[in-house]
């Protein structure tokens, strides 16, 4: 922790009574937050047990007999379920594409913004670029539908007019392959601008002298970016890359739910949607808890591995 050095000095030989008189109120402040964590974050963990128990929609998992195969029945079932394998594959595919396509965009945009000299213009640009981050996926799905619909979406209207062919239409939302790219591009559209904040903050830490020195050496814009700006961003880039790699099996819920439609479920059903449909809608609590547990455990494993690798290569990890 970077703040270790500047915390309060230790209050050495204080008696318990004096200590409580002086600092007891701090524990009072903590009561509500701790109750919150106990009830809404730790108590649900008891229900993870249902992943190893027979499915029962009425009784609590601890009142129910163990599932078959030493309690692993639901995990085996999940991995034999084509739908789950499909959801697993979709989750990995969409996350990998997100990472490959989405990760570099905020870096490039931050480099661009960093080159803008007019302060007012820069601020206005930033404000506009942050806008999509504040929209919910429901709103974005509404916007995207109007923009991308087969018949009357803005893009296809323009395409038909330009090509002069009333049949020309790109099935952005109704064809599986196109839908995947739409999903990725909309993700970039929503978060890339917001993602620049952290890079721009890192850029303020680069000494102006480095730029001056580069200018004296006759470096042009691109060489300045390459030799000064990008190396300055390196630690931030690596930390964020690790965090994203750690989340490779995580799945969003709002985004696929809002953007999906009946025609593309073969590529849009990710693990969170599978859990929602099997668990909440189909009352298969045991199976869906097992799937969720698998996802959480593998997620933690990925995160820890990524963090260890980061520290091994000499970068600041996230934990």
């Amino acid at each position, binding site marked *: 922790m*970077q*703040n270790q050095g*500047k*915390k*309060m000095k*230790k*209050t050495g030989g204080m008696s318990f009574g004096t200590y409580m008189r*002086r600092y007891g*109120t*701090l524990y009072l*402040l*903590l009561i509500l*937050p701790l109750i*919150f*964590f106990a*009830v*809404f974050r730790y108590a*649900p963990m*008891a*229900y993870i047990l*249902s992943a190893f128990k027979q499915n029962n929609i009425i009784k*609590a998992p601890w009142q129910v007999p163990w599932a078959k195969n030493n309690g692993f029945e639901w995990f085996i079932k999940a991995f034999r379920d084509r739908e789950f394998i499909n959801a697993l594959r979709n989750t990995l595919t969409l996350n990998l594409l997100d990472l490959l396509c989405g990760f570099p965009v905020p870096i490039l945009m931050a480099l*661009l*913004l960093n080159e*803008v000299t*007019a302060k007012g*213009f820069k601020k206005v*640009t*930033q404000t*506009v*670029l942050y*806008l999509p981050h*504040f*929209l*919910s996926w*429901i*709103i974005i799905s*509404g*916007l995207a*539908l*109007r*923009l991308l619909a087969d018949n009357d979406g*803005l893009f296809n*209207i*323009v395409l038909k007019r330009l090509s002069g062919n009333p049949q020309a239409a790109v099935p952005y939302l109704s064809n599986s392959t196109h839908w995947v790219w739409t999903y990725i591009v909309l993700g970039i*559209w929503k978060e890339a*601008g*917001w993602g620049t*904040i952290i890079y721009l*903050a890192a850029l303020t830490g680069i000494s102006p002298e480095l730029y001056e020195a580069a200018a004296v050496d006759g470096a042009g*814009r691109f060489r300045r970016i390459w030799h000064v700006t990008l190396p300055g961003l390196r630690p931030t880039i690596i930390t964020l890359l690790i965090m994203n790699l750690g989340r490779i099996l995580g799945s969003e819920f*709002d985004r696929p*739910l*809002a953007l999906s439609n009946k025609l593309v479920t073969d590529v849009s059903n990710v693990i969170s949607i599978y859990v929602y449909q099997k668990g*909440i809608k189909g009352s298969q609590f045991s199976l*869906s808890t097992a799937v*969720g547990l698998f996802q*959480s455990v593998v997620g*933690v494993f990925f995160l820890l591995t990524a963090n260890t690798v980061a520290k091994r290569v000499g970068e600041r990890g*996230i934990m």
Partner: protein
Amino acid sequence: MIKSKATRIGDAVIIILCLLLMFICLLPMLNVLARSLSSSEFLIRNEVLLWPKGFNTDAYTTVLNNSKYQHSMIFTAGLTVLCTLLSLTMTVFCAYPLTYDNLKGGSFLNGIIIFTMYFSAGTIPNYLLIKSLGLLENWWVLVIPNCLSVYNMIIMRSFFFSVPDSLREAAEIDGAGPIRTLFSVYLPLSTSVLATLALFYAVGRWNGFSDALLYIKSKEEYFPIQLYLYNILQNSTNAEIATQEGFSNPGLAETVKMATVMFATVPILLVYPWLQRYFVTGVTIGAVKG
């Protein structure tokens, strides 16, 4: 400094690229805005692009006069205010004690709190808990289960750490206890970070709908605006909405959808630009967390 020709061309290219990016960000909004203000005859002929044709505000009047919409909007606004206030209080209560290095058990508590950020029980166990607490179909389920975010707590705590210790010591010498120090020293210095977190919590609640989708199924009066909008957008045919929502003119349904999207968006658009200065700091603190 005199700029070379190459630099000036470069500067121009940069400005053009920025304008292009801004246009991409605004394009979907402009399209929907134009549609919401157009008359349906032009919409059906696919003539509306980025500028309204047959300008009218009927859709907005219809939405504003729709009692379901009115209810959902007022309910969500109230919910957002309540959640934001509660969350800010909880966040401060949680973060402040943890900044005391000599708090006994502090690092243990810190550990169990941070752990929940990396490992969560999952959707179904959470659902089963909410069910056993009897909170299903109860609007408090939209307030309490997410009233404290560890991520935001860390931002708050990091900010408290950055307050000079000398101020705390001075307050203690004056005889102030930890709570008075919090209210008289820390909170007055924290307005920027409080504004940031208020924005994060408020946007989270305003835009949130998955909790309502999971926990509130039958009670439509507890549907937040996003779930209301989701249901409208999911309905495939416009005639269906017209009947369901009781609009007299089915042709209006398309523009009404668009007007509802605009209404759900505008409150946030009015707020966030004013807080930009603050949230940039907040995000930065959160990223270099300890």
